[in-house]
């Protein structure tokens, strides 16, 4: 027993150069750590995708079948039963592009919300920057989207739209959307980690978002009715849910770009700025917001 020492354990630890083990690293260190984990992020995503389909007989074929079946349902309802064209020259490519692109954001948000709360055992067993989890879950959706895109290209071509150089723009569009989705997924990962109820609410929020984003009807056609409220139209256009899918439509569907948009007096030049702006704001803000709670994720 060493008698009258008044040194506290924390001071003793500090004098010997020990550091707190559950402390949050500095932002710059943290970014470096996430970057070092990129192979893990990608491999974890691929492994999850493979494991998701092992229990079904057709296996990963479902990755192609699911979007195909979705298209079939939309064709049946909107193409044959309702026979709505709603002021769009080529409705099926318009609809399928909208649905596939919006689904990417929708599924990324849902997956992000459960990425931390569904992996508590992993968080409580191993060290890694927790942002790897929402990133991984968005990568899973990206892998799914890339397969859906092949289906989409075939459908757009099958409905007689020409293959043009504009198609190349789909790459930067999806890249920007991916960055945006990661940002939103990070925000929801933190909210979902501490308030699991969000997972119950999300379906309602996302459905409302779907209806206001012009996925199954043309915002341009709708805006004719709002002619005296031009600010409202601007807000509808600013909605990130519609920005990325409108850009995808102008890139893939020639009739939409050359006939429909000019008829509504719209152009896609502003959309690019919105797409870049939303991606930067969502990613930077989301990363910062997620990082601020890094050391608390294990508590559940």
């Amino acid at each position, binding site marked *: *027993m*060493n*008698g009258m*020492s*008044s*040194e*506290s*354990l*924390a001071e*003793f*630890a*500090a004098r*010997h*150069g*020990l*550091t*707190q*083990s*559950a*402390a949050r690293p500095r932002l710059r260190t943290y970014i470096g750590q996430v970057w*070092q*984990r990129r*192979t*893990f992020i990608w*491999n*974890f995503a691929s*492994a*999850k995708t*493979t*494991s998701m389909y*092992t*229990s079904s007989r057709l296996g990963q074929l479902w990755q192609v079948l699911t979007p195909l079946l979705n298209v079939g349902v939309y064709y049946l309802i909107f193409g044959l039963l309702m026979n709505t064209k709603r002021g769009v020259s080529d409705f099926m490519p318009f609809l399928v592009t909208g649905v596939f692109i919006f689904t990417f954001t929708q599924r990324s948000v849902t997956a992000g919300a459960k990425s931390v709360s569904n*992996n508590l*055992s*992993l*968080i*409580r*067993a*191993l*060290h*890694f920057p927790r942002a790897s989890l929402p990133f991984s879950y968005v990568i899973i959706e990206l892998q799914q989207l890339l397969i859906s895109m092949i289906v989409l290209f075939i459908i757009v071509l099958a409905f007689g739209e020409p293959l043009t150089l504009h198609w190349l723009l789909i790459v930067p569009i999806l890249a920007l959307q991916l960055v945006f989705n990661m940002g939103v997924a990070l925000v929801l990962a933190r909210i979902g980690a501490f*308030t*699991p*109820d*969000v997972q*119950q*609410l999300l379906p*309602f929020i996302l459905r409302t978002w779907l209806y206001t984003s012009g996925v199954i009807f043309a915002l341009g056609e709708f805006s004719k009715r709002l002619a005296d409220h031009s600010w409202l139209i601007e807000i509808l256009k600013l909605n990130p849910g519609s920005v990325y899918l409108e850009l995808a439509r102008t890139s893939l569907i020639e009739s939409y770009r050359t006939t429909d948009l000019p008829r509504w007096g719209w152009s896609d030049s502003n959309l690019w700025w919105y797409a870049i702006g939303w991606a930067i704001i969502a990613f930077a803000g989301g990363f910062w917001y997620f990082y601020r709670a890094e*050391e*608390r994720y*294990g*508590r*559940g």
Partner: protein
Amino acid sequence: MAKALKEKPPMIDQQPEVVLDDSRDPIVVVDGLHIVYRVYGAGGNKGSAASALMRVVRREGRPQMKEVHAVRGVSFIAYRGDAIGIIGTNGSGKSTLLKAIAGLLPPARGGVYTDGQPSLLGVNAALMKDLSGSRNIVLGCLAMGLDMEETKKRYDQIVKFADLKPGFIDYPMNTYSSGMGARLRFAIAAARTHDVMLIDEALATGDAKFKRRSKAKIEELRKDAGAVFLVAHNLDVIEETCNRVIWLDDGRIRMDGDPQSVIKSYTEASGK
């Protein structure tokens, strides 16, 4: 008297005094540590979307949420070269304490100070049982923080150590016998060296032959590690491997000292 901790009154009589020993090199300092974690009640009334919305708006937690106070004011110092056994009944907070030392559970109060990064020996949570053994080796190594190159370098060694039946490495892990699965998990976990190694019942798996080999492997890892913490119910294993034993009781340290005397009091207290 030795340095007593600035704790709230009810804790003082529970915690043996911590002695600061400047002649040795401390590697882990646990200072008045409290761990509280939340559990959500299973099933029950999830409520409607509207009531869920109101809870989110009012920033309330789920109604069935309970807080578990698993570690209640633990303090001790581990020095370089220590192999510390942690014993106690089920639910006494042993595994929680290990996870807190590893920095995986944030402290509610107090703190853990370490030299280097303590890590748990175990990757079970990162593995996916419907994927092949070889895929899980890669996944497990990456999850432990190795890069692809290091993973490839260690791959053959892991396969050899796990000693699976030929061909099984390409089968999904859920086709493995429990022994084979445990061997592969241990082989993956042991592929990395650790500054401070935390082992939770890892020795209790596999047949006699594998137990011998895993013990040898742990000895080997111990030489590279600065300190080892071992949680096990098998008191013989603790007495053989450790030079110090901490007895946890209901989240508090009941006794801290040399293996023989602590284990003796522990067996007397738990009776017969």
